[in-house]
């Protein structure tokens, strides 16, 4: 197989590959490693993806070889190679104390060079997975103070805050992401989700809860406006409008008139129906949806009809 066809295999893989998908990708290792090294950016991108796939499936020998070739080309003191090496170390660590060792290594590296962003990010994720959540958050805020224009850091921080139910902080972080990437529809939908969860956390029909639900609805609508046929967005619209139409929420607290909510609800229902039937039949223009998301949408449609 040629370099481009191999690269396309990796590019067409989903963002969160299933175990079988990862396995089939990592089984490409021999054919990739046997290609002659042409020293093109594509080849090294392929090596990097392959490294992650092989680590995911536990093929540590191939991973070691790939990493070695990357290090031979770019040098062991390259920040990116250091981070990849770190991922390898984390994956091959078998117990808690070895992970602590890796963590200590990261801390030492950062002491030498505080601007090593890839290592700083590895350290934060490792802290988080070692359930030192508050340490991870404080390390991440330091990183953001250094570089507040990095969308990845902000969205990661939003995730960490969301996990410990600090919703206003999580929303703040996602708003920062929007300042950097104003058209990221997935971030809009995520804001809708967090507002929705935040509304759930306050008592049912209070004014505050309704306000949050309406904010959530608006974020979802914006996501849908930016991206036609965005399943997650329509799912959210349907869910939130359904919630707003529940009888226990008094009409006085709502700022959006009931008739509009009704209409939006039916728009979302129609769109979801289209997506579900379209993707089940594999119609043109409806491929590429995550099957789990389609199943969830189907369930929601059945539950409300």
């Amino acid at each position: 197989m040629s370099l481009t066809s191999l690269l396309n295999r990796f590019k067409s893989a989903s963002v969160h590959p299933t175990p079988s998908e990862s396995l089939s990708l990592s089984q490409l290792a021999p054919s990739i490693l046997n290609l002659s090294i042409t020293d093109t950016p594509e080849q090294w991108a392929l090596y990097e993806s392959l490294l992650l796939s092989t680590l995911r499936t536990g093929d540590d020998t191939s991973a070691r070889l790939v990493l070695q070739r990357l290090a031979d080309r770019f040098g062991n003191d390259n920040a990116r190679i250091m981070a990849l090496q770190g991922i390898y170390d984390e994956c091959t660590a078998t117990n808690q104390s070895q992970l602590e060792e890796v963590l200590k290594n990261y801390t030492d590296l950062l002491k030498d060079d505080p601007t090593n962003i890839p290592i700083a990010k590895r350290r934060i994720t490792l802290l988080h997975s070692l359930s030192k959540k508050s340490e991870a958050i404080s390390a991440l805020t330091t990183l953001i103070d250094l570089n507040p224009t990095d969308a990845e850091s902000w969205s990661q921080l939003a995730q960490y805050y969301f996990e410990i139910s600090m919703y206003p902080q999580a929303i703040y972080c996602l708003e920062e992401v929007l300042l950097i990437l104003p058209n990221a529809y997935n971030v809009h939908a995520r804001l809708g989700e967090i507002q929705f969860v935040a509304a759930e956390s306050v008592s049912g029909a209070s004014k505050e809860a309704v306000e949050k639900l309406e904010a959530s609805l608006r974020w979802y609508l914006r996501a849908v406006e930016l991206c036609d046929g965005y399943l997650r967005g329509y799912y959210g619209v349907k869910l939130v409008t359904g919630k707003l139409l529940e009888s226990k929420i008094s009409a006085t607290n709502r700022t959006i008139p009931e008739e509009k909510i009704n209409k939006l609800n039916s728009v979302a229902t129609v769109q979801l129906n289209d997506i579900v039937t379209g993707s089940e039949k594999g119609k043109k223009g409806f491929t590429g949806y995550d099957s789990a998301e389609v199943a969830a949408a189907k369930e929601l449609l059945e539950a409300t009809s």
Partner: protein
Amino acid sequence: MAQVVGQQILRDPSLFYWILFPITVVMILTGVLRHYATLLLQSAPKPLEAKAIREQKNYLHGINLRTNANQIPLSSFTSRKNYLVQAFQSGSFLKDPDAKNKPPANPMTDPNGMDAMMNMMKGNMMMIVPQTVIMGWINAFFSGFVIMKLPFPLTIRFKSMLQSGVMTRDMDVRWVSSLSWYFLCLFGLRPVFTFILGNDNSADQTMAQVQQMNPQANTQQLFGPGQDPAKMYLAEAENLEVMVQHEFVLDGIEDRILARV
């Protein structure tokens, strides 16, 4: 009247093998050589210090807030604005807060500026030296030769371009002198270099000129040498302060979506 017959000049065919061909080959070879010499001489850009990164990125943060303010609710925007204006004015993001009131450092003594200047000088030397040498070589050996005839007619204005080095007023413009062939090669070989060396080669001088025009594009330095970050921060704080208009994009989104279907 009979048709004007073009000028006929008898040329020795060896003019082609001994002048036209050598000039072209030498030009291509110097281009390739210059490309590799530039690569060798280039020093890797120095990584920035943490404080310098912080200074630049927080400045960008302010710009981001200003350009995309309409993406977030008014309350979120106001709280961010108040915070950033205060921080920008107090200069807490500055690399060196004490230097706020001092005049900007002389770019000649600034070590970062020196680095950039050294690189620029190396690049310039790589252009100037070979050009001078080759032009001297052509002048010494081949000046005054008429080496080829263009297959199409041209207006008289091209005379100075095509016949430099040959002081004959009455000669047809279609005749090309050796020195002019050198200039044509100098400016016209870019596609050849792109073919041999790939897209971002440094063999051609026009490319280098483009790079000199916008040095911002490929350096990570946001504040050029000689610019005072403290003043830029103050200006940005003022820009943020005067922003009174805020239209949240989510206002009226329900109607927009309903109008769409």
